[in-house]
């Protein structure tokens, strides 16, 4: 009895507040937009019995998905989301690896502090961290003031409201997610492996490529997924730092819903976004699984 209650409570909570809502999204994505509340048809009336259910089913169609293919805004947004997420992930990796490497090679008594310094930004507001770049990157911003001041440039650079600003924002906010898995892989690296490589004729640089990189591969892969997956559906960064030409699907969904009030299309956008995400999520899960098996 106790066991049943233990399982049932979280189970039904998640069914009701995670699975059912998701099925609703799926259903609405197959409905038509209507000037009503809720603004779509058909609505399911369970009191009508089986006949009503059949009628309800016949009211569903793939019109919204067809609409997504006709308007090239959508597929461009998907494509550019994937592109921005890919580039941003690579940039984050390039920024994170040296930091993780430096941490793993720092003296033992420094490491808890360095660890805390990496985690600290995670606890502070995401919104504020993104916002802090607005003041830096804007035309009158601190970066332009600084560069103009030391005379590197004569005219302010336009960074804010471009994709560059979006990249900076993503690298900045997701950096800890990349540093931590790489650091934990590097920290476990046995120093005698590097000595063995040198002993067998490697220079330090080639020992790094032949031993350190392959042995931190799992950390790199985990970090890349941890950055890539949430970045694809990112809304705050492209809205705040990106410009009108920055197309990301999270932003499109938001605008479709709040500005155009087209719930069926917004739902269809969500369904496709999820379909796109399934591939990296499954790959990520498999990578984690493999790693657990290798360790166990």
């Amino acid at each position, binding site marked *: 009895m*106790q*066991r049943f209650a*233990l*399982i049932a409570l*979280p*189970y039904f*909570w*998640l069914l009701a*507040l*995670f699975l059912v*809502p*998701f099925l*609703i*999204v799926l259903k*609405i994505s197959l409905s038509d937009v209507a000037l009503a509340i*809720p603004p779509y048809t058909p609505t399911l009336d369970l009191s009508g019995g089986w006949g009503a259910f059949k009628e309800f089913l016949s009211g569903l169609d793939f019109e919204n998905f067809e609409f997504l293919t006709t308007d090239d805004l959508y597929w461009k947004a998907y494509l550019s989301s994937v592109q921005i997420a890919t580039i941003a992930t690579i940039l984050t990796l390039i*920024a*994170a690896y*040296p*930091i993780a*490497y*430096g941490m793993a*090679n*720092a*003296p*033992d008594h420094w490491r808890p502090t*360095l660890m805390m*310094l*990496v985690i*600290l*930004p995670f*606890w*502070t*507001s*995401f*919104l*504020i*961290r993104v*916002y*802090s*770049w*607005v*003041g830096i990157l804007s035309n009158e911003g*601190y970066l332009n*003031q600084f560069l103009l001041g030391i005379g590197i440039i004569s005219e302010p650079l336009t960074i804010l409201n471009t994709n560059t600003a979006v990249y900076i924002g993503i690298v*900045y906010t997701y*950096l800890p997610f990349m540093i931590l898995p790489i650091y934990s892989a590097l920290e476990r690296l046995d120093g005698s492996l590097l000595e063995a490589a040198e002993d067998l004729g490697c220079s330090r640089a080639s020992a790094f490529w032949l031993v350190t990189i392959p042995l931190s591969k799992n950390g790199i892969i985990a970090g890349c997924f941890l950055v890539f*997956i949430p970045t*694809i*559906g*990112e809304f*705050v960064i492209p809205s*705040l730092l990106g410009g009108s030409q920055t197309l990301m699907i999270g932003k499109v*969904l938001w605008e479709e*819903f709040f500005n155009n009030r087209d719930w069926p299309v917004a739902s269809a956008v*969500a369904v496709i*976004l*999820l379909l796109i995400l399934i591939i990296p999520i499954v790959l*990520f*899960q498999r990578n984690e699984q493999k790693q657990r098996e290798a360790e166990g």
Partner: protein
Amino acid sequence: MRRMTWFNVTSLTLGFAFLYLPMVILIIFSFNASKLVTVWAGFSTKWYGELIRNEAFLDAAWVTIKVAVISSSIATVLGTMAALVLVRAGRFSGRTLFSGMIYAPLVMPEVITGLSLLLLFIGIGLDRGILTVILAHTTFSMCYVSVVVSSRLVSFDQSLEEAALDLGCSPASAFRLVTLPIIAPAVISGWLLAFTLSLDDLVIASFTAGPSATTLPIKIWSSIRLGLSPEINALSTIMIAIVTVGVITASLTSKRASLKRQADERAAT
């Protein structure tokens, strides 16, 4: 063999400068006298005063704290239960679906979570307000709690619980008297994580809150969309200060605890 080369020192310095400089600038300019955020016009704390007199911000802060405390507390209970189910309950029908529902919200884009919950609340005719935000926050943060707690439960030595049962505890009291005190640090960090996530959330709250319950992130969002604001700088500084003090206190406490433990162990041998 650890090597602290100039390369490592440089990359750490640059890396941490990148992580912290934007926040440091934000904090400095929160004490700027000028209304123009990017132009320094002398030291002043007037924006903090403005902030304190701004009713809308205070209301939003109060709503946010209420939502965060309630949702993270419920999420901690549900998440701990879910972790027990994941680690201990063995096989039951629907187990795969259950663990899927625990892990999926972690990777689900916030826009989708928000949208789907909003559609549910409208579908069942629940008016949007504080309650709906709490329900939404509880749902996704309980998944984070259960991940944190279950990773601790996996390494928990079950023979301790068996010893308690052997000595006459009921399963429930064995959990309360033995398991819970030992996994307490994980449960507490789960609560803190849930609390922070709730405090931080803009997207899901925007979908589920409706006009009657404006949380602080929603309020911040609507004001920074219009551009830089010195009040927001002041607010950010306060929030950063609270988090910094909290994190440093927590890490010092845990460091002291582990030092004391080491000293005790040394003394014992």
